């Protein structure tokens, strides 16, 4: 296989590591030295061979370990995966999209053989082989959404479209930045975004919703979102806040470079063909600050962005307490020289 999968953990002993390859292809989210909300959607077209934007669904060295972490979280809390009864068809749509894309884009890792509705799926990294009948739930070990998202990195929300709104009616959510599917399920676009400060005053959500309602089949889009996470935790859920929230207090000037991570979400949106729902994959990438600053442009820029970020945003993103320490650490890597436009390393 072309990718060497890491044996690593995202909990307790935190053996998660990024290789040099993973550092260089990290989806750094800031295209300039400051940050403010914007809809910032662009077509999800293949970009830069080797980058996380090249494939429909990026598979990297963390794949096997992330899937083990998902299974661990689900065993403790099965409500991380839910699908309201009318969303089963959207689950099949997503299964088809992921299987077809992965088999086409990673033929050495995944195979899909189709004979009408009789499908044969082979997932080599996870050692899974499954024969099933497409659109017949009784031929899979669990529902189609759960089945395929136990084999795909990132969280997945399935949004039903009706009444000129989008409804969070199904999802698999185990790698989230402090939001809960169990809490949000059944909510509409404005309801689930209600906690976000400032953005609604800017009219961001009205514009974004209008765009998404008209998102077309065959024309997916993507955007990046980001936050800060202490320790490489995929599961920073409200359900487990009592376990991870306290870890934010363990940051010291000595360990900030290794414990503090920039967390970036590559969010994509696809119109699903049979259900007319939207698939909303949210893929999480983590990088510790001491790895990030090995790219000089990123070290300089992150320092400036975090230093100048409005207080409401630092509070909402959950690092207001540690911001002075993080900014102090990053200042060592900012010599004040200008940075080049765009997100990629020089």
């Amino acid at each position, binding site marked *: 296989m072309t990718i060497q999968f890491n044996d690593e953990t995202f909990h307790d002993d935190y053996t998660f590591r990024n290789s040099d390859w993973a550092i260089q292809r990290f989806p750094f989210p800031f295209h300039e030295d400051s940050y403010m909300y914007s809809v910032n959607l662009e077509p999800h077209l293949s970009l830069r061979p080797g980058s996380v934007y090249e494939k429909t669904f990026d598979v990297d060295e963390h794949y096997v370990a992330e899937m083990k972490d998902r299974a661990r979280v689900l065993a403790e809390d099965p409500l991380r995966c839910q699908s309201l*009864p*009318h969303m089963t068809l959207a689950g099949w749509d997503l299964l088809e999209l992921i299987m077809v894309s992965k088999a086409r884009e990673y033929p050495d890792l995944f195979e899909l053989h189709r004979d009408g509705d009789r499908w044969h799926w082979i997932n080599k990294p996870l050692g899974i082989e499954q024969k099933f009948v497409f659109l017949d739930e009784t031929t899979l070990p669990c529902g189609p959404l759960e089945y395929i998202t136990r084999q795909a990195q990132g969280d997945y929300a399935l949004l*039903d479209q*009706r009444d000129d709104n989008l409804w969070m009616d199904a999802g698999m959510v185990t790698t989230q930045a402090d939001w809960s599917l169990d809490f949000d399920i059944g909510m509409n676009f404005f309801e689930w975004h209600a906690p976000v400060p400032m953005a609604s005053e800017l009219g961001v959500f009205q514009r974004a919703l209008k765009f998404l*309602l008209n998102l077309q089949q*065959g024309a997916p889009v993507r955007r990046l979102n980001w936050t800060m996470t202490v320790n490489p935790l995929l599961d920073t859920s409200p359900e487990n806040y009592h376990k991870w929230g306290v870890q934010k207090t363990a940051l010291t000037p000595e360990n900030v470079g290794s414990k503090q991570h920039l967390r970036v979400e590559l969010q994509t949106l696809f119109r699903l*063909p049979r259900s*007319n729902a939207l698939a909303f994959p949210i893929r999480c990438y983590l990088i510790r600050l001491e790895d990030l600053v090995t790219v000089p442009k990123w070290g300089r820029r992150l320092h400036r962005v975090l230093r100048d970020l409005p207080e409401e945003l630092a509070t909402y993103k959950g690092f207001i307490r540690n911001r002075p320490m993080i900014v102090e650490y990053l200042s060592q890597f900012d010599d004040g020289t200008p940075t080049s436009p765009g997100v990629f390393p020089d």
Partner: protein
Amino acid sequence: MSAGTKKIDVTVTEVVEVNDLVKRFRFERSDGAEMPTFSGGAHTVVEMKDGGITRLNPYSLMSDPRDRSAFMISVRRDEQGRGGSLFMHREVKVGDRMVLSYPVNLFSLDLRAKKHLMIAGGIGITPFLAQIKQLEGMNGHFELHYSVRTAALGSYTEELKAHYPDRVHVYHDDQGEAIALGDLLDGQPLGTHLYVCGPKGMIEWVCRTAEERGWPAEAVHYEEFLAPQSGKPFSVTLAKTGKVIPVGEHQSMLEALEAAGVDAPYLCRGGACGQCETDVVSHDGAFVHRDHWLTDDQKACGNKIMPCVSRFEGRSLVIDR
């Protein structure tokens, strides 16, 4: 949709005269690959090269959404129309190459419904044909009430009655048959969703009756594509370049923009989806708003226009393009 949107190169593989007014067209991909799947109620925009004019008309997909071999549409000839349906009827032959858009659905089934109650009038039957096939595949519960002018002009009535004798009801205008709508709506089980597609008057009648009978708006779905209507010629000025574009009598503003090389956004081209909404920078004259998208307040404000169906009469119109 606009330039850059996914389009499909197709070949016409079948043209069937369904009756005196309606022809059915079958399109297969010219490269031999499969068509995209779609959901019942979706439409495609057909590009027609009619002499020097490019016409872009939306038509509901009527084929089985699971059938990846082809798309099928039915086109009713409209002698009073601006020419799209006449072009399809007179010019399009088996073997012709054409371009279709990817499917777009502005009339999808609400999959929460316990029962789907469908009301069709005339050529408005087409989206229901695809929805019925989709529901059949998932054991969905539907009932169709279909009103046609005469038996001879009723498209697909025989096939529907033969396949679904208990679920399809056909009404002939010339025999004085009419849908007993009030009784029909009152007798529906909880969880029923109502869908209507047909002439404007029918849609208004069904929506009004449902509202009077206490149906929640969320359970009533309709699709009405407005065809752009002819009107007095006018000019529109682009704020970004200062370019002045004439809009002809039988042309929509959107078509005039496209003909002038402006990459303007659109999806339904029928005043329903909102995609072509355009800001008005200044105007001296009166708008002829014909869309279903802008609210009455927005129309009164005069700072937005939907160029797919709406027009302008007056001295000057400057838009933000």
